[in-house]
């Protein structure tokens, strides 16, 4: 038995296997030759009178789905706690964050978004937070903390709290396909797309529901139009 | 005197062991719905159904009619023959108390032999005194029609069968 030859063959086979496996793994996590498809799609967009002011994202990784509980804070608790908070001068963000921490709702998902200042009216400033999970923002979720004369006056929110993620990931559809799907829903309509982004979103439903305490959010393409309107196209393949 | 006594005793015994025929009016709140008037029941069971439209107590008795011939001798030696219909209860009468404005008393009497029967519904007042008596007579007889007559079409079964078989083979 010629062991040298056998060894060589074996080594080549193993290297070949490794190359194959590495290639497969990389291929899984990259876009799958959609570059040519994208050109086709851009052409179609032009035909349909759709203006794109942003690039169509290439990546659409596999993602988990999330389950959260709708935040509900007792109004009296907000009022009582607000009284004990220090007066903010310019550091509205800091005071708002402390406020949320005392309420027990400041965590890794609660991300500061912006502070809006007002001249006249009931409030001087509004500090807005967004909800981010697994690297994606949860659409239509916000917490706003309102200040008047440096004191916290109120809090408004629509927020999924205590988020749990699914044990497995699911493949998502590309932005291009999502865009096509949106366009096909309203044939002939003129649209100017100013944003396309992957988010988590709790789908609309025709079902009549009572008061909801917990719901599921799915990876969704949030397509923003020039009018400011946001359209949602589910990114999970069914 | 010596002759009369046994006869009197006999009459007394008969009286005590039988139900007397109606001596009171019928109760307007009592109606015997089954069996219907002047009907014949072809069965060995007799269903009695009494409708009571008042809260009161009734006692229901079903008695079989039998004829008794009594012979009595007068003092002067002439013999008189009297045929009396007497009624013997086939079961001890049951009482039923209605507490609503509408109730039914129903009872199935079993092993009823053919003959004439008298159904007596006595309405009982205070101290179980009979206030009203409602009666009905019914005849019980044996079923006449034979079983095999139900489906007879005038032809024997095998003949009809063969006829139908031929029909299915050769079409109609």
């Amino acid at each position, binding site marked *: 038995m010629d062991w040298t030859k056998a060894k060589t063959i074996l080594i080549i086979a193993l290297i070949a296997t490794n190359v194959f496996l590495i290639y497969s*793994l990389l291929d899984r996590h990259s876009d799958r030759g959609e570059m040519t498809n994208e050109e086709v799609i851009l052409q179609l967009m032009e035909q349909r009178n759709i203006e794109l002011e942003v690039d169509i994202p290439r990546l659409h990784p596999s993602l988990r789905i999330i389950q959260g509980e709708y935040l509900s804070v007792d109004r009296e608790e907000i009022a009582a706690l607000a009284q004990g908070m220090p007066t903010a001068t310019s550091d509205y963000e800091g005071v708002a964050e402390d406020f949320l921490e005392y309420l027990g709702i400041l965590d890794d998902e609660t991300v500061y978004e912006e502070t809006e200042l007002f001249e006249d009216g009931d409030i001087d400033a509004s500090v807005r937070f967004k909800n981010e999970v697994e690297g994606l923002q949860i659409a239509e979720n916000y917490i706003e903390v309102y200040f008047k004369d440096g004191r916290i006056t109120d809090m408004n929110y629509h927020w999924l709290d205590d988020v749990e993620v699914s044990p497995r990931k699911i*493949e998502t559809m590309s932005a291009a396909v999502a865009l096509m799907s949106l366009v096909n829903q309203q044939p002939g309509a003129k649209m100017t797309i100013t944003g396309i982004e992957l988010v988590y979103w709790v789908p609309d439903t025709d079902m009549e529901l*009572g008061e909801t305490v917990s719901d599921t959010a799915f990876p969704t393409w949030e397509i923003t139009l020039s009018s400011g309107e946001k359209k949602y196209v589910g990114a999970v393949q069914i | 005197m010596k002759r009369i006594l046994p006869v009197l005793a006999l009459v007394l015994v008969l009286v005590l062991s039988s139900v007397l025929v109606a001596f009171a009016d019928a109760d307007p709140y009592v109606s015997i719905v089954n069996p*219907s008037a002047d009907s014949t029941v072809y069965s060995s069971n007799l*269903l009695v159904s009494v409708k009571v439209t008042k809260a009161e107590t009734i006692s229901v008795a079903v008695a079989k009619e039998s004829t008794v011939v009594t012979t009595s001798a007068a003092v002067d030696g002439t013999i008189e023959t009297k045929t009396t219909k007497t009624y013997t209860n086939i079961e001890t009468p049951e009482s039923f108390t209605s507490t609503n404005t509408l109730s*039914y008393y129903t009872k199935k009497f079993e092993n009823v032999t053919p003959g004439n029967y008298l159904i007596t519904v006595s309405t009982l007042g205070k101290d179980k005194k009979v206030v009203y008596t409602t009666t009905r007579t019914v005849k019980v007889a044996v079923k006449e029609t034979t*079983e095999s007559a139900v489906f007879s079409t005038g032809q024997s079964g095998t003949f009809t069968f063969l006829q*139908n078989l031929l029909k299915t083979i050769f079409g109609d």
Partner: protein
Amino acid sequence: MTILLLYVFWADLELTRFSLSDIDLGFSDDDEERTVFVEDVAVPSYVIIGTGQGDYIVKSDVKPLYGSIEDPGSFVSSLLAFEQSDELFVEEISEEQYKEAYTYRSVRAVFDYLLPLGDYFKYKNVVGAAGVEEIKNLSEIGFSAAATDSLLVKDASQNKYFRVVSGAKSEWAESFFSGTDFDSEAVYYPISALLGEGVDLDLLLPMSMESDMTERDIYAGRDTEADAMQAKSFFGNTFDFVRKIEESGGKVIYMYGYGETVLILNEDGSVEYKSEAAGTQSVNYFEALDIALQFFDSHQPIVTGGGIEPGVKLEKVKTDNAGHGKYRFELGLETDGEDIFFKEGNPVIIEVSGGVVTYYYAERPIIEPKQDAGTNEVFSALNTIAANYQNIAAALGEDLSMEAVAQRLTSVKYGYYADGDRLVPVWQIGVKGLAKPLYFDLYTSEQYGLD
């Protein structure tokens, strides 16, 4: 390195596209795990024995008398054996002849639900007699001592009566009529006999009856801790990506896709499942029933505590033969042969379309075992109606006499009524013109379910 890569390759395996066919409905191929079969459920609603003397015996606990086809000495076997005997033909008879025959000693099985005869024979592997296609649906089937060489059949869907004539007399029927002692049972009479002239109705009522039924506890049977497990049995391996909505009242909704498949776990323990994916197989009545029962069986609630689960029986069947065949099976619950009635109607509804379950609703309560409390005389059915006839007339919106109300009766049964968390022994009375039956206490005649 290869091993490491191989590991990463397999571990990273994600779910890509999945279709509804991926939903594993959790059926076990192993029939031994099943507890409810077509044979258990496609049984008569009740069996009527005629003594030949004007009275009858009605048995709603049919299994002891009806038997099973495994037992050659049973009633059902005798029916099938009759059908399989040589030289059979079917002839139509008149309603009068049919009724006359049943004034003699007789025994018949009554099916209150739709039962297509053709499908029944296919299912039992019996070749029907010549002319049997005339009989569309089986409402009543039985023997009369008037002619033991005939099977008497009633098809209420066509309002027709038939007899299936054989060359020989049925041995089973002959021995049943001569050997059975009818005296020790509760006795039923037709209403026309009990109420006299003016009421022409064959409906049978028991005269006097003793019962050992007492109040019992009934539990909703939903263990919220087991919700996920329950849901998994409906969604299989797609469960991880199913939307879950929890309402403040305790109701939980699971939704696949955009609502193509929805599962609702209600606060009261009932379960509702809807799927828009109708199948494409053409199945007959019994195949559809088998599919429905398999589904019911494989989605048992999680039972906690020491209660017992009631059995099921067919109450009503609707079918629509357009397309691949749609069937709607409504099942009732029973315990030890005694019916359980629910105010809202039948507690289990299963729709099968094209061979696939497209709708499932089930209340699956747990019941306290029967206590041994001896027997008591019940408030007779007739007097229950007599005590309540004005209420019944009021429900009909008319001013009626007792006799007029009696003329409108469609059914009189007894069983348990689910009144909140208690089962109470009742009379169930069906009236023509009322969408739902009425319930009265079996021992006091007091009415239930008025709220």
